[in-house]
Structure formats: structure tokens, C-alpha cells
């Protein structure tokens, strides 16, 4: 797996979490700029999916099973669009907190992805 991309994605997700957490702290819903942030994180995750699939296609194998690896990649891509939609229909601070939850989960998934590829954890 491309470690710099994984790290960048985790950091971006945590930054987004902090940003939306600040909005929630100030009792504000998510706004256009937050959605731009979510778009950036989503774009990075799509890039990660592409990189992951290309490496699999080249014959490289994750240390853990390929099925798990791909499902984690897909799960990561789904994270931001899902919480983005949820926060669109919840125009309160709780919508912002929902995005925080999604972004933190995405960052945790990055750690797991790294483990699955390198075979550290399982």
C-alpha cells in the first residue's frame, strides 16, 4: 500500500474532524467549506482505492486476505459521502458531530488498512 497516501488521508480526516468539531462546539451546522473538505477527503480515498486495486492487479498481495483489504478500501470511500448526506439533512450542531464521527472512523480504518497490507495486526 502507498504509505504516504494512507498517512495523508488519516491526517486529512482528523483535520476535518477537528474542523467540524469546532463547528459543533460553536453550535453551527456544516457549511459549504466543510463540504469542500469532505470532498477533498473523499477524493483522496478514491485515489487510495484506485492505487490499492492497481497494486492488486499487478499481482501484489496484502498480508491479510484480499477480500478484507478491498472491503476496507470500499468502506473508506463510502464514509464521507454517507456522513455528508446525513449532515445535509440535519442542519444543527449534531450534523457537524456526525461528520466528526465519520472522519474519525475513516482515520481508524486507515490504521487497519495499513495493518491488513503489512500484516502487523492480525
Amino acid at each position, binding site marked *: 500500500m502507498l504509505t504516504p497516501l494512507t498517512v495523508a488521508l488519516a491526517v486529512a480526516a482528523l483535520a476535518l474532524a477537528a474542523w467540524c468539531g469546532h463547528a459543533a462546539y460553536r453550535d453551527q451546522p456544516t457549511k459549504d467549506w466543510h463540504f469542500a473538505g469532505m470532498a477533498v477527503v473523499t477524493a483522496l480515498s478514491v485515489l487510495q482505492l484506485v492505487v490499492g486495486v492497481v497494486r492488486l492487479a499487478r499481482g501484489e498481495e496484502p498480508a491479510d486476505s484480499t477480500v478484507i483489504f478491498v472491503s476496507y478500501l470500499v468502506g473508506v470511500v463510502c464514509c464521507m459521502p454517507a456522513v455528508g448526506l446525513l449532515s445535509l439533512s440535519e442542519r444543527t450542531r449534531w450534523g457537524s458531530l*456526525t461528520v466528526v464521527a465519520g472522519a474519525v472512523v475513516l482515520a481508524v480504518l486507515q490504521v487497519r488498512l495499513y495493518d491488513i497490507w503489512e500484516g502487523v495486526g492480525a
Partner: protein
Amino acid sequence: MPERNGDTDGSTGTARAAGTTGDGGRRLASGPGRLLVTLYGIFTVGAASRSLYQLSTRFDEAPLAYVLSAVAAVVYAFITVALVRGGEGARRAALACCGAELLGVLTVGTWTLVEPSAFPDATVWSDYGMGYLFIPLVLPVTGLLWLRRQPTDGSERTDTTSRTGTTGRTDGTGPAGR
């Protein structure tokens, strides 16, 4: 940036958040409930896909752990659906499931500590959900508090969603029966 909420797209959201509709059910998934639904949704997907994979590929290794994960997934799925659907019936069902969930976390958590040999592989509820940042333990408690706070009938409480206190028991309206 002191500009306040440019609410151009909030038509659906505000209609719901304003809480002018009669059914208290819709409100289960709004406000703080929205965060709760999100977390339950994430755990449903996580636990379900994990147990499906484990049950289908290596059931023999740790049958007890994998079956318990599957049970957890079903409970999570049920609560998620109940919260989204809303209504008094769903609220009660979710309340019961949150209780069962809490019981499950405590039982399995204790069980894994007392008799680790029964669990060659971890479940979602192992060690009180330590591998999942204890969220499995926090979720049912939060869920129970949130569901208790909801009005039991359609009567509206002009409760702003920014209220975070857990002072649900001051209005002991009790079970409104049916």
C-alpha cells in the same frame, strides 16, 4: 467568520428539526439522535461484514466468538432500523434492544476476561469493546438515555436540539401506556 448558517439547502432538515409534525417518531433520528443513528449504522456495517466473513471462511476456529459477533450485528441492525423508522413502537423496541445490547456487552466482556480460552478470536464485545474504543459500551448507555428522553406520545416538546443535558428524568411522565 461570524456569518450565520447560510441555510439555502436546509428545507428538508429544518422542516424536520422544527418538529412541527405530530409524530414523535421522526425525532428519534434527528438532533443527537442523528449522531446515534450514524454510530449504530457504522457498527451494523462493521459487525455484520466482519461476522459474515468470519462465519463463511473460518467458522471452526472460534465458533462462539463469531456467532456472538453475528448476534451483535443483528442487534445493531435492529436498533438502527428502529431509530430511523421512529414511532412509539419502534422506540420501545429500540429501548429493549439497547438494554439487551448493554447486557450483552457486560456479559461477553466479563466472559472474555474470566475465560479467555473460550475465545480464540475476538468479538465486537470482547473486553467490553476495548478494541473498538469502548464505543460498544458507551453506545447502549447513550441510546438508553436518548430513548428515555423522548416524549412517549405525539405531544410536542419545543426542545431545541442543542440541549445536551441528560436531565430526562425530571419529566417522569411515566409510561403513557398505549
